[in-house]
């Protein structure tokens, strides 16, 4: 069944969209990532104009993250305090990111820089997580292996310490604010929620327990993507409500299923799966840059409508 999207101005199969929404929703619920880094390229592939895809995707992530975070709230795996601290950095970062994005646009080649930053960050984070979780699985299989000691590094020497009960941490607020800031900048430039950067940052930089990380990341993503949605809706008029509703119908259901699959898997398995996913998308984007495209030319519109 075909449906005509009023803002994107294309007709697409409704079941294809529901399926894509559902698939990305499952991943979102499992890993605490918004799924934007997967969904946005998928939407390009089925012929949605890039500007509409990025803006609408942000709106869809609001829904799937909200659905996911409710499931996590019930299990008390959301560190609200940490989420708010990250958020403070995130909003500052998003504002800087929007500014950087506009600057890159004015000097041209913004598309290229977005793709390169995807490849670099996905590649870096994917490989780190892959190696780390592989080691963790190997260790846990060895009989008599000692559990790793809690890391005590320079982060614990910083001032403005705060107690995060849910995460079981007593650390300075400076690292979470910096992490939020960095993720905010990248999220605005790359047009995603930033969960795929946030999740490993919380695990490896802040030392938060994996179970809490997912819920807290989702909690944080809601606000970043809501802010992005409103910016796109008021400045570029590129949020397609019909597309968003179809995607989020699939997405919210998927997120619920994903959250339940996530509980059943071990933390290391969860991480290695996310790592493989991140690396796969990285490889796909790298190929786009390296291989000769089948069509060298592309059509863009001048100043929208």
């Amino acid at each position, binding site marked *: *069944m*075909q*449906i*005509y999207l*009023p*803002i994107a*101005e*294309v*007709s697409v199969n409704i079941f294809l969209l529901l399926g894509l929404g559902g698939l990305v929703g499952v991943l979102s619920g499992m890993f605490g990532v918004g799924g934007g880094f997967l969904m946005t390229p998928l939407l390009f592939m089925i*012929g949605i104009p890039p500007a509409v895809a990025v803006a609408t995707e942000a*709106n*869809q992530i*609001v*829904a*799937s*993250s*909200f*659905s*996911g975070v*409710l*499931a996590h709230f*019930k299990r008390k795996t959301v560190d609200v305090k940490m989420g708010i601290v990250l958020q403070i950095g995130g909003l500052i970062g998003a504002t800087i990111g929007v500014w950087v994005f506009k600057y890159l646009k004015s000097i041209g*080649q913004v*598309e*290229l820089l977005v793709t390169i930053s995807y490849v670099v960050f996905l590649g870096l984070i994917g490989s780190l997580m892959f190696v780390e979780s592989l080691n963790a699985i190997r260790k846990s299989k060895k009989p008599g292996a000692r559990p790793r000691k809690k890391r005590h590094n320079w982060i614990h020497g910083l001032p403005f310490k705060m107690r995060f009960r849910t995460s079981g941490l007593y650390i300075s607020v400076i690292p979470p604010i910096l992490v939020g800031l960095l993720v905010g900048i990248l999220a605005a430039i790359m047009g995603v929620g930033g969960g795929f950067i946030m999740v490993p940052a919380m695990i490896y930089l802040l030392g938060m327990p994996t179970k809490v990380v997912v819920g807290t990341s989702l909690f944080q993503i809601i606000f970043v993507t*809501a802010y992005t*949605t*409103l910016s*796109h*809706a*008021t400045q570029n*008029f590129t*949020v397609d*409500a*019909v597309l*968003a*509703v179809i995607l*989020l*119908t699939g997405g*919210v*259901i998927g*997120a*619920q299923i994903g959250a339940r699959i996530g509980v059943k898997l071990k933390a290391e398995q969860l991480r290695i799966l996310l790592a493989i996913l991140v690396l796969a998308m990285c490889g796909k984007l790298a190929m*786009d*840059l*390296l*291989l*000769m*495209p089948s*069509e*060298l*030319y*592309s*059509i*863009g*519109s*001048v100043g929208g409508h």
Partner: protein
Amino acid sequence: MIRILTMIVALFAAPLAAQETVIVDLSQNRVAITANFAGSEIFVFGAVKRDAPLAEDIAPLDVAIVVEGPLEQTVVRKKDKTLGIWVNTQSVDIISAPSFFSVATTRPLDEILNVGDRTDFAIGLDHAVRRQANEDPGIDMQAFSEAVTRIRVNNGLYSEREGIINLTAETLFDASIQLPANLVEGDYTARIYLIRDRNIVADASVDITVRKEGLERWLYNLAHEQALLYGLLSLLVALVAGYGASEIFRLLRR
């Protein structure tokens, strides 16, 4: 303007022949884009009116129909390999290219019409994209124009179909023009040309209005006129859907 030119051309082209005029109608002058719009079809049918019988030795009649969407400005970018990766290096502003372009003919265009008229009246795929006057000598403009046509042919937005017009007794003709699902709203025109001896002898033009309607219209207007409200409503829908799914799954698990 086109009509006046055509009439002048027609007068010079066939000064001694019987005067012919074309009468055309369409199955629909209004195309409504609604939520379940999946493309449409327009039937063009017409008749040739003559003030005198045809001469015995006159060249056979041919018909060309051009259905065209609103002319738009677009920018075309070309990728080249730089430092091992494929990057957009050149870009060209195409001043005027129709959003939709479909040509139907009785026979192959190059067999029935002279090149000058094909260019002047934009009849044929190779004339869909209007070239700009001030061309950069360092850039192959032809390649960029061809790229627009090629990409849009692949998208189903541009087409040229030879021999699909049914012409009966050199008097009655009809053809069906397919409108794809990725149609953009705007003011479209259907131009009909009667051709004899490689020259246009008569023409007519009919307007087609393509508009979003119902929910599509409402959302499109809201998004452009009440952008903040639209954005907030989109967020509200997202939150309600997220909450709804969470609650439904909670109930299902009991």
